[in-house]
């Protein structure tokens, strides 16, 4: 079984988001970058397939050399090899088409993307990649387990979950639930040492396809102060919600 885990490098969840270059670019000053949390759940699930079923786990990112520490971290977590496609992503379609070119050259059985990246929040790369490869995509995947030569899967939906069955190849959109928070693998010293010896190949992009362009960024307007209501005056709160905010 060959697994490809698509890794997006995103600002740490506590980062203050600011923009430079007349609001045309994200200000990376002082920002720590992490593995996109949804991708980390996917990577952990892939490592379980590696440990239980001898799967080979490849991680890939589309990005410049600043993404390499994150790929090394994935190797330290346990991935067998890493690939960096050397181009700065322009939009979801550009990323998906580069990943599709790679996946067409190497036959992966299971491709794991995150449900969405927490920076761009496109929620599109997995679906587009699957479409380009003409294989199925399962969004919001919270379970994948082998049964015979097929797989049982679960998708979280609004108000419940869906139980599915399918065969490989397949693309899934990982999120919390696929593995639990407590099961995330923190790289140990041995993992970090081994990661240095593992291959990290840099490959050139194929034809670049783009569908959208970000023109500029904006921050939400500053919020006014909170209106505090005395805990003995619950009627006061209800009144404000009814007559001022008009939400009841």
């Amino acid at each position, binding site marked *: 079984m060959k697994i490809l885990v698509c890794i997006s490098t995103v600002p740490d969840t506590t980062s203050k988001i600011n923009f430079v270059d007349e609001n045309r670019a994200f200000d990376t000053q002082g920002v720590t970058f992490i593995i996109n949390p949804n991708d980390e759940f996917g990577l952990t699930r892939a490592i379980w397939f590696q440990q239980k079923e001898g799967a080979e786990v490849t991680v890939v990112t589309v990005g410049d050399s600043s993404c390499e520490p994150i790929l090394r971290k994935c190797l330290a977590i346990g991935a067998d090899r890493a690939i960096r496609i050397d181009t700065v992503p322009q939009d979801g379609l550009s990323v998906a088409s580069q990943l599709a070119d790679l996946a067409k050259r190497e036959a992966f059985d299971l491709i794991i993307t995150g449900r969405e990246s927490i920076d761009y*929040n496109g929620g599109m790369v997995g679906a587009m990649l699957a479409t380009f490869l003409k294989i199925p995509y399962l969004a919001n995947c919270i379970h994948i387990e082998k049964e015979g030569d097929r797989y049982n899967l679960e998708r*979280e939906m609004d108000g419940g979950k869906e139980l599915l069955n399918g065969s490989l190849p*397949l693309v899934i959109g990982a999120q919390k639930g696929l593995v639990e928070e407590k099961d995330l693998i923190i790289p140990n010293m041995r993992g970090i040492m081994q990661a240095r010896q593992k291959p990290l190949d840099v490959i050139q992009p194929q034809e670049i396809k783009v569908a959208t362009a970000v023109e500029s960024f904006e921050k939400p307007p500053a919020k006014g102060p909170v209106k505090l209501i005395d805990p003995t005056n619950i009627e006061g709160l209800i009144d404000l919600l009814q007559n001022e905010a008009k939400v009841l």
Partner: protein
Amino acid sequence: MSVIVYIESQDQEIKKSSLEVASYGRAIADASGTELIAVSFGLDDTSILKHYGVDLIYAISTEEEVYFNSDRLSTTLAKIASEEGSQIIVFSSSANARYIAPLTAAKYEAAYFSNVIGLPLSYKPLTVKRSCFTNKAFNLSTSQKDLAVLSLSSNSFGIIEKEGKGLSKSSAYQESTSDLKVRSVEKTANKVTIADADIVVSGGRGLKGPEHWHLIEDLANVLGAATACSKPVSDMGWRPHSEHVGQTGKPVASNLYIAIGVSGAIQHLAGINSSKVKVVINNDPEAPFFKAADYGIVGDAFEVVPTLIEKLKALKGV
């Protein structure tokens, strides 16, 4: 030339988010002088769509099919869009809609914009404002393609009644070659979902344990609200994953968000920021959530919430 909207329903009732999408589609069709087409699946009565501006309705019959089939739905939508020469296809931001929107877009390598928060700022080229960095910022994005697919963020446009032509047309439900099959669906019993809710009541670690969640549920019941929770609450198994909201959980864009015993960590706020009105009940006046809230009560949840439930019940006469 036309605008297409994808209509979702539950138990034969059109979802409110789909009426919002239709209203939004109508406004785009008006601005660009084209027709508004609605596509629904397995829905018997589509007559109300006419009153939300729809000119042409494709009510696709899905035969025996009871389950959501992402492949058949996206293929059918893409085919209609191509036959109708549509420039824009609009989806809601429900989990199902956000599943099939990028699948539909990818079939034509179309431009795809999720989390769109208002009408396009321009049409040539198409420019939209969307939220990014999990609601910590917005970006203005333009399309470089003739076909654009949009997912509209909930409650960002509103529902507007307007008469459309309300004609109908039929089309086949496209077959699927995928062998990914739904075996069954497990629904959380009769509950309002976070994605559809006007009001969301959320509980954090301040509630001390799952045995106190009747406070959250009772308050949600009297308000007709969905229930939600912070990440540690679902990590500890007090509540199901599907209720975890925030940067790494579900996004919330309700009209009213009530947070009880939630500190307001940056990752929590990121996911709920686009809710219109935020109420916080927390016994620590220094809790960061007060800075992000519209209304706040500094008090003990175990005292404040039962009173709130009681007063609301009296008000609603239940």
